[in-house]
């Protein structure tokens, strides 16, 4: 089955898409940096941040390729931020040579409803639109993500992300709506002796692009390392371990850098 670039982008969006969060601190978890989940908190009002990432990825039956992401965040109001981003890639479909694709332009907002208390988790949501600027892309796609973050253990935190992806221009046999759920975990490493590193891990499930394919299960693990007062380096690996069809990704190794200004 051949997949259009739009579908590929849709799959990538489902995998990791465009999300922000606090870029300046290793404790603040942010989708794509390096895994797929967000925490419920936004960046601060008037904060600006940029995030970049690059790595190797290989889809099932495809060639090893390059994937990257660039994103800009701005806290435009208290508990709100805006994000703009693209996901350029050099990937190949099964039996095809690799092609450069600048990717769709993602525009989104994230909102945090509340701070975590003893009785209530932190809740937030984000909404993203994917403008079809990528190779062969058509129609604007959307994603809505509900986020809940909660202390788990002494210093750890659990992050539940519930996604609803809307593919506005599906090809025959493709789903129009693709739900997904991710459970992320973050744990600062080294407390109470060192304070500059956080372990992140995730397990998730999402609907496959093709309506006949079973849901895709993915896992990932990574680390966020503070490298300067306002900068974090991250490294992670994730993989779809079960389900899906050609939209299943064997693995993705990603390294990234975030900074605020």
């Amino acid at each position: 089955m051949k997949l259009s670039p739009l579908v590929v982008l849709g799959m990538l969006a489902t995998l990791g898409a465009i999300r922000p969060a606090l870029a300046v601190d290793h404790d603040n978890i942010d989708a794509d940096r390096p895994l797929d989940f967000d925490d419920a908190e936004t960046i601060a009002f008037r904060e600006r941040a940029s995030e970049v990432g690059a790595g190797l990825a290989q889809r099932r039956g495809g060639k090893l390729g390059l994937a990257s992401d660039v994103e800009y965040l701005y806290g435009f109001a208290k508990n709100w931020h805006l994000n703009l981003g693209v996901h350029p890639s050099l990937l190949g479909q099964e039996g095809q040579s690799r092609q450069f694709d600048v990717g769709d332009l993602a525009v989104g907002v994230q909102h945090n409803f509340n701070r975590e208390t003893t009785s209530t988790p932190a809740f937030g949501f984000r909404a993203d639109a994917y403008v079809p600027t990528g190779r062969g892309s058509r129609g604007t796609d959307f994603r809505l993500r509900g986020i809940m973050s909660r202390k788990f253990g002494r210093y750890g935190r659990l992050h539940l992300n519930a996604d609803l992806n809307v593919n506005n221009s599906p090809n025959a046999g493709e789903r129009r709506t693709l739900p997904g759920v991710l459970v992320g975990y973050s744990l600062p490493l080294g407390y109470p002796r060192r304070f500059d590193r956080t372990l992140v891990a995730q397990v998730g499930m999402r609907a496959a692009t093709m309506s006949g394919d079973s849901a895709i299960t993915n896992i990932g693990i990574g680390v966020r390392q503070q490298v300067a007062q306002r900068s974090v380096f991250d490294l992670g690996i994730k993989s779809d371990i079960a389900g899906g069809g050609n939209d299943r990704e064997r693995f993705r190794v990603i390294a990234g850098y975030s900074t605020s200004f």
Partner: protein
Amino acid sequence: MKYLFFAAALAGIGFISPVVAWAAPGTTATGNNAVREIPALPANMPAWLNSTKNNEIFYKRGAYNFAITTIPELNRDMNGVAVGHALAYEALVTGREKSLETTVWKQIDQVLKNAPRFMPSEKTLSPTFGQKYGVLELVFDWTHVSHAQTIDLLSSPRFDNAAKDAETEKVWDYYRNQGAPFTVTGLPMNMAWLDSQPYSQAFRRKYPKVNALFWGYHWLQTSIYDGLREKTPAEQKKMYALLGKRYHDVELYDTKRPFMPMMAETSPLFSAKYPDIANAFDNLHMLHDMVNDILASDWMTDKQKSEQIKRAVYMMSPNAHKGCKPGENHGVIDGISHDHRFMVGMPGMGIMKNGINNAAQLANLEMKRHEGMNMGGMAMHSAAPSTAKAEEFDPTRLMWMPKMGWMDMSQCHHCTMPLTGGGDNPLSAWQNSTVSAEGWTMRVRCALCARDMSAEAKGGAILSLSTEDPHKRVIVFSDDRGNLTTDYKGAVFLEDEEKGGHPKCSQWSQAFTSRAAFDAYVAKNPKFKDSKPLSFEEWANVEAEGTPDTYEQEKGPVENPYAADLKARGIGTDEGEKP
């Protein structure tokens, strides 16, 4: 799956209630066989005290941010402070208070000795504390940002002294004017009253070692302002070699300190020039103490603790003191002190404990209000000197410091002559010199007073000598043998006591940035036409003459106003005499 999102969103909305529900005032609680009255909550506490919004605001942008990293040891020590605060708070609210003086203290001490390179996130280190007292955490965080930025600014080699002064005002404005309600007032507050709540002093009595750490952090955070001011990067590094050693060797472990370190005791020049900022930081540190005491008061329930913490936050907020001005005293209204008088000669310092009953004075004012003064809601009467019997002693005139005794903040601490400009005029704050030694920084009136006072101090000292230029000071380091050195090239000194005796020391004992500046001064003051311009080496080797004949030791209403407090902590009171 999509329903999950909507459920999460709706659940989130449901937890952002602005409703404020306060407990009935004046309830009592028992503890240690004593019945104590829990302070009533003010009637109209603002809704933001119950908000669960994050409301984080980014700090003011500036090329000076994180300039503290140019002094790596100071940077690490400040990062260690954040860890210390957070670990202690987390232990207090997670049932580990019994290990506070042992295991937790050791953990904190280990971190302080191996402090991190980057500022850790306090809310990640103390997640349960953040869950329970989120608004308080916002107040702490936002005010700590202002603390950090002003220190960054003073550390920055990219700004000259005049630019630092201008930008300091902007940082303060930014702190107050970003629509964040969770700020701390810059008004002077009556420290004695704040430290006489039913729960006051519980923490320092139960956890003396951890309390010493807290006060040690606050000593560093307050001392560093005058420590950094108007020094070159090289001088700043030398300064911190001395100050940092004192911090690690003495201040972190001083369990006998009678009261928290105040900005004016450790950075009087900064406090005189920026009284609002100094007061805000003192109020922040007092809020820390009040929260510590509340959390250490087992006779209160968790709910009562939470309410008293909100009351304490409110007491320190600008909201609670709308319309009040520095220097005014409106007594206690609705359970909150509006005594904003400051110590004579020091606008950056609220009234300190002095042995008379400040609380009684304030209660007296409140009684008068209820007896018929038409206050019109929260309206104030004009600056009201109290009228109770105890006020035969002016509580604003004298304060007491360990090993220094009673002192008048408007006077030179070496010769007790009035400071130049009276000490309380921000515009003339630069005209006075200072001596930093033994954990304190004192203002003095002239270069001779600075030199001779440093000779009396134990250990090393730093002299910051004013010159004719508001933004240039001659920085002098004294080693523990009293040898003086400076990096300042070309400084010239005037010292001619025969031209007026010590009462006129500020005229005949001065430092100048250059020979030309000396000559200009002599041209304006012909009586010095025969006075010899002294090089630094000549000036530094003048034999100290000891206490000047103008010196008069002040006497307060009691020998040591902290005697009872210290006794309750099992500490002797023989520290009140001047060495």
